[in-house]
């Protein structure tokens, strides 16, 4: 031990303020590095649990949709709008042909 007493150790022959404040900054940096992973872990665990609850709720909603919409003609049209349009156009052409034939008679 270099110093004779506690007060001598704290005073560091006049340099105490500098030495101890430097070590205090080091303590803060060490504490930050130890605390921030703990905080981050809490956040991630909460996030995973929230996500799981949401997924469970979504599954219920999807089941409901499947039972009501299944077999609906609308769904098929929206699933493939192009073919639905073509079908519609073909029907209109048939109608107009019929009307032309009717006027000729």
């Amino acid at each position, binding site marked *: *031990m*270099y*110093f004779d007493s506690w007060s001598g*150790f704290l005073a*560091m*022959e*006049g*340099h*105490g303020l*500098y*030495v101890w*404040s*430097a*070590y205090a*900054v*080091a303590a803060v*940096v*060490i504490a*930050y*590095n*130890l605390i*921030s*992973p703990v905080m*981050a*872990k809490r956040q*991630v*665990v909460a*996030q*995973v*649990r929230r*996500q*799981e609850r949401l997924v469970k709720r979504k599954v219920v909603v999807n089941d409901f949709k499947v039972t009501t919409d299944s077999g609906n003609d609308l769904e098929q049209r929206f699933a493939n709008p192009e073919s639905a349009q073509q079908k519609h156009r073909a029907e209109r052409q048939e109608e107009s042909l019929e009307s032309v034939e009717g006027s000729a008679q």
Partner: protein
Amino acid sequence: MNWTFFHKLGSPKWFYDISGKWLPWLQVSSLVLILVALVWGLAFTPPDYLQGNSYRIIFIHVPASFLAQAVYMMMATAAAVTLIWKIKLADMALKVMAPIGASFCILSLATGAIWGQPTWGTWWVWDARLTSMLILLFLYIGIIALRGAIHTTEAAAKACAILSLVGVVNIPIIKFSVDWWNTLHQGATLKLTEKPSMAPEMLWPLLLAILGFYLFFTLVMVLRLRIEILSRERKTRWVKELVS
């Protein structure tokens, strides 16, 4: 050559499992080494003939400065691995190392300023070593901010990797600044090629402190990396089972 170890290293789950076994060893060794080194350095070493007791700041200033630069080099290595092999774990390491490196860079600058007041008579000068360390801090902050600004994980990984690699140019400038522009900051005390210019009773606690700080860095880096793994793999079954 068998490359399976390389792919294993890239697997987040494998790393999560194996790193859990390292934690107790890292905790005990870093705690013991830092405590022994700092108590030794503060209370048992004799004062410097020129600087008196203020030199005792060296036992945190030098390890913090070493780490600030070493962490940056590790980040640059992780950046290269991210760009070349697209290993997710490397990008996670790059992300979690940035705030740790920044905190040690702040510690280095703060302890340096506190040490400068009784030794040089000023907190701060625009000396080459000090300025290049400040630039290193800005690089750390820039990398953290860049990741925060980009929302897609892949795009953020690429941008941060490129910025980390560009910033490497600053590391040799820091290292050689005391030789190129010899102004106020003293030259290197520890050199690999020469005998250290320091008495052994001061050198030993310093070497222990450096080792202790490195182990402490490894500990907090692994802690953060494990959490980052959980966060990015949160949609996988193993994380869900682990958490719930």
